[in-house]
């Protein structure tokens, strides 16, 4: 009997505690409104911004609870295709194949990011200048010394040392790598044919660091290294960065301003929201545009991915669908006010207008959802 009590008493105690927690939660939520939960998953790059949006949006609409898991763009696309989330976020648009698998996906650019070139060069105080060709040569292993004539001709004032260049890249699959290799593929035929663009590639030279922090760690601890990191990471951690020559012939530093300019030049070429975006790339659209003054060339969108017809999702009802559309609308308008504080780029007006048309396409059982 004693032993029986020993088992029963804790079970009863746990049951009482659990019930009371649930009861508390149940009673503390207002009964007048039903809580709507929206689930999303995807890219890690926009996660701090999306997280901020979720918190701010909850203040305005307390009955809408948005959850976002930053599991990476690839995972987000997989979950979107499997229809296990209501929206996804990705740093790269869907490829043709992915777009076929997840037909009727809308692309909504939600913010803009860029890749900064960071390096550790003792004795060199000025910012280094790079061109796409030289970057490709460095990362493919054609340029191996800091005092290579190509680097000297770009930086005649810098006291470049006679030291080997240690290349550092991301070891984990990432949107940052996709953006960077996209750029290198555009500027170098050799890169395009031998390495290509992807979230991870077969790197010809260099060391791999895990995450932005891994790359930054190797670069900051080792002289004569060069690597690439997300601009936000470089900025928040005060890493040095170089300027890159754009197609207009200017050497441009990464900044919110130069990213915005790049995005505006790309805006005119964007396809309709429900078409395939597989070829969309800010990099591609400005790499040969000699008019793109002030634009930083290694810039890219982050996208929300959402189905055009929301009733394809299981467990989706009209109320949740409306809530989702309202949330998306809010993120590309009022939500953009939070971007700059977190070092994300607010969307230029052209792209907001483009997105408005896309969001108006979202429907539930054929019924347009957004009512302004």
């Amino acid at each position, binding site marked *: 009997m004693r032993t029986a009590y020993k088992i029963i008493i804790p079970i009863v105690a746990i049951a009482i505690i659990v019930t009371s927690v649930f009861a508390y939660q149940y009673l503390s939520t207002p009964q007048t409104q039903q809580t709507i939960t929206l689930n999303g998953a995807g890219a890690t790059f926009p996660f701090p911004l999306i997280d901020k949006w979720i918190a701010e949006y909850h203040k305005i609409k307390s009955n809408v609870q948005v959850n976002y898991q930053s599991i990476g763009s690839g995972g987000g696309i997989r979950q979107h295709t499997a229809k296990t989330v209501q929206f996804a976020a990705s740093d790269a648009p869907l490829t043709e194949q992915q777009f076929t698998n997840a037909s009727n996906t809308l692309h909504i650019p939600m913010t803009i990011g860029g890749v900064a070139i960071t390096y550790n060069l003792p004795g060199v105080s000025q910012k280094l200048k790079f061109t796409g060709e030289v970057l490709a040569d460095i990362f493919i292993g054609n340029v191996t010394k800091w005092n290579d004539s190509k680097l000297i001709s770009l930086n005649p004032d810098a006291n470049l040392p006679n030291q*080997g260049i240690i290349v550092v890249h991301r070891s984990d699959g990432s949107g940052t790598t996709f953006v960077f290799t996209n750029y290198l593929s555009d500027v170098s035929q050799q890169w395009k044919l031998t390495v290509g663009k992807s979230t991870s590639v077969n790197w010809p030279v260099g*060391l791999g660091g895990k995450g932005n922090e891994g790359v930054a760690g190797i670069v900051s601890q*080792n002289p004569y290294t060069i690597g690439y990191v997300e601009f936000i990471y470089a900025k928040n951690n005060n890493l040095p960065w170089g300027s890159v020559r754009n197609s207009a012939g200017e050497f441009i530093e990464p900044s919110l301003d130069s990213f915005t300019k790049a995005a505006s030049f790309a805006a005119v070429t964007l396809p309709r929201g429900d078409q395939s975006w597989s070829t969309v790339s800010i990099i591609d659209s400005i790499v040969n545009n000699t008019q793109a003054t002030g634009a930083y060339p290694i810039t890219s969108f982050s996208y929300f991915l959402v189905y055009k017809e929301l009733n394809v999702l299981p467990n989706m009802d009209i109320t949740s669908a409306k809530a989702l559309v309202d949330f998306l609308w809010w993120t590309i308008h009022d939500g953009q006010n939070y971007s700059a504080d977190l070092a994300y780029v607010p969307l230029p007006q052209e792209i907001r207008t483009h997105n408005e048309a896309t969001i108006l396409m979202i429907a539930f059982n054929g019924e347009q959802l957004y009512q302004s």
Partner: protein
Amino acid sequence: MKTHRVRENAVKSPENPTIFIHNLIVRIRRTMKKFSKGDNLFKLLTAVIASSIFLILGLMIYELTVGSRLSIQRFGIEFLVGTKWDPAITQVFGALPLILGTLVTSAIALLIGVPISLGIGLALSEFSPKRFGFAFSFLVELLAAVPSVIYGLWGIFTLIPFLRNNVYLPLQAMFGFFPLFSGLVYGGGVLTAGIVLAIMIIPTISAISRDAFSAVPNTQREAMISLGATKWETAKTVMSYARTGVIGAIILGLGRAIGETMAVTMVIGNKFQLLPTSLFDAWYTMSAIIANEFTEATYDLYVSALIEVGLTLFFIALIINVLARLIVWRSLKLVRGIARE
């Protein structure tokens, strides 16, 4: 033992009626106990729980095989001997460098970790006062509880700069002509990964080898001392007596080193190449590439190839554990044999 035997003999001889009746009652009680509900239920329950292990293992192999089907069909044996990992252009995946990287870093870890672990084990079982030994083994086992990502961060921010400036660069200055110590020194790489792994497997190996040393009968030590052996000579005998247990400990440590992911990823440099040019060069391991690339593997063949890496790792770990089991069995048999004598 003896009383039991007497009783069994008694059961077989029904000549004595009182003993016969007594035995009958005992028998009936035993049979009743056998069929009592609670016991049966308990037996069933434990059987179900125990067999769930086979279920889990079977499911694991099944899922890994199904998941890697695409890659197995596409590459076959080429996957295990291939030396190219190109997810972007050719979409060809070969895991040989990863397998080598895993085995070599683990071997370095053993090379560094085993002597230290045996020293700890010996000190704890042979030389230290009991109370001190208790506190010390507590500390050593605490090391095993530190999450591997902490080892990784410590590796990046403390160990790498320290090794680079105080060990690797001086080593290169002295022995730079030797290929193993040539090339670029950046602090991370094969040797660093081996050192971090060594630190991580020391708790496992030292704890188990300490137990193996403690299990050596005291008669062995007494015999050695009575022959006039020094402490060191006694310790040598203890070690050779416990060698099978120690081998088991080493192989368990090796198992841990082979499966280790985060700490290695953070210090090894993640460079996909068949062989590194020196001990300071970067390399890659199987678990590291899974951790690195799985989240952003964007097409089915790529995911499938990563799962096949997992399957390969699973089988390598399985082989090592089977080896460990065999060796531990042998050592148990030996100990039993000696005890019988």
